């Protein structure tokens, strides 16, 4: 009986987690992939480990620590690159390793054993709390509203920032808000996929979607659905095989991506053969 309650919990958490992870990762993923911010986002994900370490050390929630740390580092990079004072990719590379270093230092300084450290690195649904899921759900609602209401404003700023500046004084504000949302989305999804793998949760679904459509809106919606399929399959595998959730989700998504690419390639070839 105990087993079935546990199982029910596990399935419910997994399902809810998959739904909200897919919504947040699909929307933000479309933004970062089309704006070529994948490297920046990977940097933010790894830098957030510094916040996790600080959280452990001071006994506050590691997620909260990671959220503050990653939002500040993301805004810092954005601010410096707006001012064009830095080489952005170098700054990201430095921040990436610096965050990890801070995390490792603080975790080693923390007395005692840090039980769910592995889950932060590679993701584990077992340690996901209902509070985490509520946070992801709130984020989903917020992102849907934000991108729904300001769709064209965000689309055009991210497509051609300089032209947007000719008609809008709000370009930087939108950039900063969206960057903060990227950081938050990454941190909230770390519970699902882990620091090391979360970036793929954001980048693979839009890349699958972009094989079939080039319309921004459709890429977002398709990413959410592909993300959900990949996450649920990966999640089931992780449950059956007893492997970390993050790893099996990313593995599943990558297989879907390869399959989608192949299907597209074959259909294009068949089409050209017919026309020749």
């Amino acid at each position, binding site marked *: 009986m105990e087993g079935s309650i546990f199982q029910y919990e596990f399935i419910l958490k997994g399902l809810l987690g998959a739904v909200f992870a897919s919504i947040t990762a699909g929307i933000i993923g479309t933004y970062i992939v*089309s*704006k*070529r911010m994948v490297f920046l986002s990977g940097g933010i994900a790894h830098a957030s480990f510094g916040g996790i370490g600080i959280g452990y050390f001071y006994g506050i929630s590691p997620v909260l620590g990671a959220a503050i740390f990653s939002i500040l580092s993301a805004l810092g990079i954005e601010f410096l690159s707006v001012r064009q004072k830095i080489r952005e990719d170098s700054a990201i590379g430095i921040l990436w390793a610096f965050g990890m270093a801070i995390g490792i230092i603080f975790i080693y300084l923390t007395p005692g054993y840090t039980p769910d450290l592995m889950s932060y690195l590679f993701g584990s649904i077992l340690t996901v709390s209902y509070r985490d899921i509520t946070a992801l759900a709130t984020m989903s609602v917020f992102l849907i509203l934000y991108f729904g*209401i*300001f*769709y*064209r*404003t965000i*689309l*055009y700023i*991210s*497509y*051609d*920032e*300089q*032209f*947007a*500046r*000719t*008609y*809008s004084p*709000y370009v930087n504000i939108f950039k900063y808000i969206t960057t903060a949302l990227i950081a938050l989305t990454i941190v909230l999804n770390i519970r699902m996929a882990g620091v090391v793998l979360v970036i793929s949760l954001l980048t693979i679904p839009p890349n699958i979607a*972009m094989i079939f*459509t*080039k*319309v*921004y809106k459709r*890429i977002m919606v398709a990413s959410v659905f592909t993300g959900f399929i990949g996450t649920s399959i990966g999640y089931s595998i992780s449950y059956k095989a007893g492997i970390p959730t993050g790893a099996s989700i990313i593995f599943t998504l990558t297989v879907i991506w390869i399959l989608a690419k192949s299907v597209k390639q074959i259909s294009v070839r068949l089409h050209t053969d017919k026309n020749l």
Partner: protein
Amino acid sequence: MSECLLELNSISFAYGSSIVLQDIDLKVYDNDFIGVIGPNGGGKTTLLKVILGLVRHQKGKIIHGKSLQDGNGIGYLPQITTGDNNFPVTVKDVVLSGLMMRKGLRSMMTTADRKKASGVIDELGLNELAGSSLNELSGGQLQRVFLGRAVIGDPRLLLLDEPGNFVDSSFENDFYDKLRLLNNRMAIMMVSHDVGTISAHIKSFACVNRKLHYHPSSEITNEDLVAYGCPIQLITHGEVPHTVLKKH
């Protein structure tokens, strides 16, 4: 009778310590067609950016005329594509973005807006490409898309930065005819180094090489150039439009 749309009052601008524009005075009237010429690095593009507010001048004053304030603002065709051509955005979306200047933050596009975009796309001969993404287009087609974006909002002033760079020869005549038609509705400032191509269409010249020298008619005499000291080609414009190429 003609209204002054824009007035630049001793504008100076520097990137760091290097002065790019110095004491620029210019008035743009509502039926002007000003050719902005000058050597590379002379500040032509920067002048447009100052007018657009993309960079902030350190000295001087820009006065926007009444119709530029409550009208539809300034249309802009940049010299180089500033957006990413691999970005997932369609031709129609890009043209529609030209309407953003009169939209609020919520920026919903109405059926009328979409119809207008279709009309502009049609006029530019891009009908079959309306749903295409930008990486499927040739350089000339791209340039037309950006022209569409610049004019869809019916601006009172149109700024063109080296539009001749990408325009394919099959469209070149159409392009300049189109500009002449647009000039009935809006003032045009066109940056170009290709003086030969534009001289026939221009009503006046502004020669920019850190300082600005304005020629009310499209006639530049040798004395102007000597006094001004900029190494450009010499243009005259008589009964029959022609260029005299001469280094000095």
